[in-house]
């Protein structure tokens, strides 16, 4: 490949501007102080949850250890936020709950991004009948009442699907179950946005040039179209994380998502209804964490959207 051809290809691959583009995006994002704050808050939350094990060892406690002599202790040097109805340290459980909620949110979002991008890319690129079929499928999923379906799918009996009954009660399978259930319904937004963007991009001259040069459809999609869809993909995915965390917390709250003794912010609120009067903080902490995290993801995603597509900004 000659130097000129290589240079031309870099340009084709990233027509919105290579390094300079990202730097500009970063600069635009940095100007939005609220979104920047949300980003750092999320980074802090992730770091804290990741360090849950270290903090646990340092404090000399066990997040899942039940001690009925220590129920409902007020905050102290030993238990920073006090203890819950089973005498477990609330601060540690919040960290572990964050680990579950954040990783479910991020992993599901990743899965949603992959499914949505593949479907959106195929529908947008090939158009025609495939597009019709895929978009009908998308419409069909959107039409379904979300919460009832999530409740049904998260309470189905996995043994009836042929899973090993001994394994389904492990916490790993529980997390995977919830991730898949939410992903089944979550991919539609990404798919629609990616498809719309592909429709715009594929009409541009450099795509025609690539096709005329004999580049195969897979290569055109992955090397020429995908890089120009990334912005849309990132925004849609980031904005979906908050929603996913909300859905996980509702399911866990109803006793269908993450199963105790493993903590999640949602299941820490199960049964809180009865304790509201005597121990209001037991309700406040986990709910507040969900609220703050989801809001941070939404604000961060919104800031990202503004930075990536200055045109859509009113």
């Amino acid at each position, binding site marked *: 490949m000659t130097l000129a051809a290589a240079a031309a290809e870099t340009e084709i691959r990233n027509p919105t501007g290579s390094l300079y583009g990202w730097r500009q995006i970063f600069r635009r994002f940095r100007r939005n102080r609220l979104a920047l704050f949300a980003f750092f808050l999320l980074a802090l939350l992730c770091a804290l949850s990741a360090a849950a094990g270290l903090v646990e060892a340092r404090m000399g406690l066990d997040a899942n250890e039940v001690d009925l002599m220590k129920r409902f202790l007020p905050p102290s040097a030993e238990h920073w936020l006090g203890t819950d109805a089973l005498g477990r340290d609330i601060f540690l459980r919040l960290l572990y709950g964050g680990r579950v909620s954040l990783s479910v949110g991020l992993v599901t979002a990743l899965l949603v991004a992959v499914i949505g991008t593949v479907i959106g890319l195929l529908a947008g690129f090939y158009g025609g009948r495939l597009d019709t079929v895929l978009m009908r499928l998308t419409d069909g999923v959107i039409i379904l009442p979300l*919460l*009832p379906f999530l409740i049904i799918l998260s*309470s189905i009996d996995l043994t009836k699907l042929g899973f090993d009954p001994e394994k389904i009660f492990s916490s790993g399978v529980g997390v995977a179950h919830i991730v898949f259930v939410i992903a089944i319904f979550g991919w539609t937004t990404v798919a629609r*946005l990616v498809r719309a963007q592909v429709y715009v991009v594929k009409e541009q001259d450099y795509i025609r040039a690539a096709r005329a040069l004999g580049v195969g459809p897979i290569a055109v999609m992955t090397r020429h179209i995908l890089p120009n869809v990334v912005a849309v993909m990132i925004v849609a995915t980031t904005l979906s994380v908050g929603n996913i965390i909300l859905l996980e917390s*509702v399911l866990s709250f109803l006793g269908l998502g993450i199963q105790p003794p493993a903590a999640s912010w949602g299941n820490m609120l199960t049964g809180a209804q009865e304790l509201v009067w005597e121990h209001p903080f037991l309700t406040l902490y986990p709910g507040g964490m*969900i*609220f703050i995290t989801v809001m941070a993801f939404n604000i961060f995603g919104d800031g990202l959207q503004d930075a990536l597509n200055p045109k859509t900004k009113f």
Partner: protein
Amino acid sequence: MISPGFFAGRIFQLGIMLFLVSFLIYMLMGLMPGDPIDMMLAANPEAGPEDAARLRAIYGLDRPLGERYLNWLGAAVQGDFGHSRLFARPVLDLIWPRMGTTFILMSVSLVLTLAIALPVGVYAALKPYGFADRFVNLFCFAGISIPVFWLALILMSVFSVWLGWLPAGGTGGEDAGFLRRLPYYVLPVLTLTIAGIGGYIRYIRSAMIESLSSAHIQTARAKGCSENRVIWVHALRSAMIPVTTIIALDFGTFFSGALITETMFSWPGMGKLIYDSIMGNDFNLALVALLFSTFFVLAANFTADILYMFLDPRVKMEVDKVKKEARI
């Protein structure tokens, strides 16, 4: 303007969709934990294995799944939706009154939501990225991000437990007068409004910004309309076209949208009925209730399409665009 063929096509699509959804739910119900016959037997210690086989034959459970579904569908098409196991009553007798209570709850909160969201959204659109807009924006994010069940818990603990002003759940009885029932509405309506208003404000705001920047607004200003008239008559009118479509679409989720709120406040509506039936393994009731909810979503989509065509005769296909934007 709208041909009979269009109607027929859409109604045909609606039928196909309902058929597919009912099949999907029927299959999923078969995957739910437990077995209805085992549950019946558990309630009766004298029942033996022969009784199990007999019951299975009575309920047709010894047949293959596909055949069972077709039997169910055949009866359903003729208006026989079967009985609820949990309530021991015909399913339709349970669903109609529940729809009524849900409808009242949802309409009251929709009216309240719009009454607040319209002026706030318009105001925020007047100076985009001004101080007021930023403040409103933050508030909207808070509303969108709050977990509904937690919001309900907080409202309950503040207004029912702590202050003791309002009842924490129920409807105050069906025979009670309007004034007796009124306090029972406050918390569920407040919950639904807080959780739903953010989306509406943001949507109204962006529709208003778009309409304020269009040419007919310049014309109105140029001919000397007062600023108030420009905003509230000329701009709001065209901004209301997409907003109306959103409201119509929102109507569709009425009957399952309040699942969490209704469950938290023990409000005897469709959402709670769906939740209770799924949790209580009342498969038939859950199936029919979900099918009805889906039907309303589809019907609302249909209405939104028609409404949009009437409001904005210029574009016929534009409605898909609005729907897509609304879901982002």
